[in-house]
């Protein structure tokens, strides 16, 4: 019912945000803050790792979309790592597959970023 957020630096000034848990109307502000902090500090190439996310709702999607919009203004991008079929399905039916790079593992997400 909760979310754990871990931020770590990766190659080429990119950052990885590891999320573990459930992203909903209660927990998404925590995710929003973590992503917002990175962008405020001038980091515009982000990987958000959703491998350990069991659940995401529209407020969680809204946070990801908001982050993507902000980094794009600076020529950056947000790539997602996602393997959970239910969550992939949500990206599918909302059409968000078309605006996010979604990868099966962090390596692939990283290669596509740099």
């Amino acid at each position: 019912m909760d979310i754990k957020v871990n931020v770590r630096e990766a190659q080429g000034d990119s950052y990885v945000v590891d999320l573990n848990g459930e992203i909903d109307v209660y927990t998404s502000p925590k995710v929003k803050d973590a992503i917002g902090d990175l962008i405020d500090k001038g980091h515009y190439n982000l990987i958000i790792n959703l491998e350990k996310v069991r659940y995401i709702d529209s407020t969680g999607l809204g946070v990801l979309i908001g982050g993507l919009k902000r980094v794009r203004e600076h020529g950056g991008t947000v790539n997602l790592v996602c393997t959970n079929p239910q969550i992939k399905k949500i990206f599918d039916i909302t059409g968000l597959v078309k605006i996010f790079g979604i990868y099966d593992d962090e390596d692939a997400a990283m290669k596509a970023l740099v």
Partner: protein
Amino acid sequence: MNQPVSRENSSLGTVELRIPSKAEWVAVARLAVAAVANRLNFSIEDIEDIKLAVAEACTNCIQHASGSDQIEITCATEVEGLTVRVQDHGRGTRPEHIASRRVDEPRVGGLGVFLIRSLMDTVEYDVSPDSGTNLVMTKKVQS
């Protein structure tokens, strides 16, 4: 002779839940409804769909139904499927806001009702500026 179609006969009972209209209680609603759905013959994927639809409905009550301090969730179970009613007593919205539509471009917000309509089999909104929003949605068990 005609076969009488008896809706009553297939009823497995009704579970009612009332939560405060606050973000921290949405997880209780979606876990409780998932547990209800688990008692029917739903697939894991269908249960996840129901969970998300209920959470989106509750989230909208919290974010938009000003003046309402509680959300009522009623699950009517039948062998054939589940009917979930999510009701608040806040200020309602205009019908065009909860109309069904396509997702075309990225934007923050506006996905909740779309998801509910995508994930459930039938969705009916009864919006009233006075008595709040009453959402009734159903999902059939795949046979």
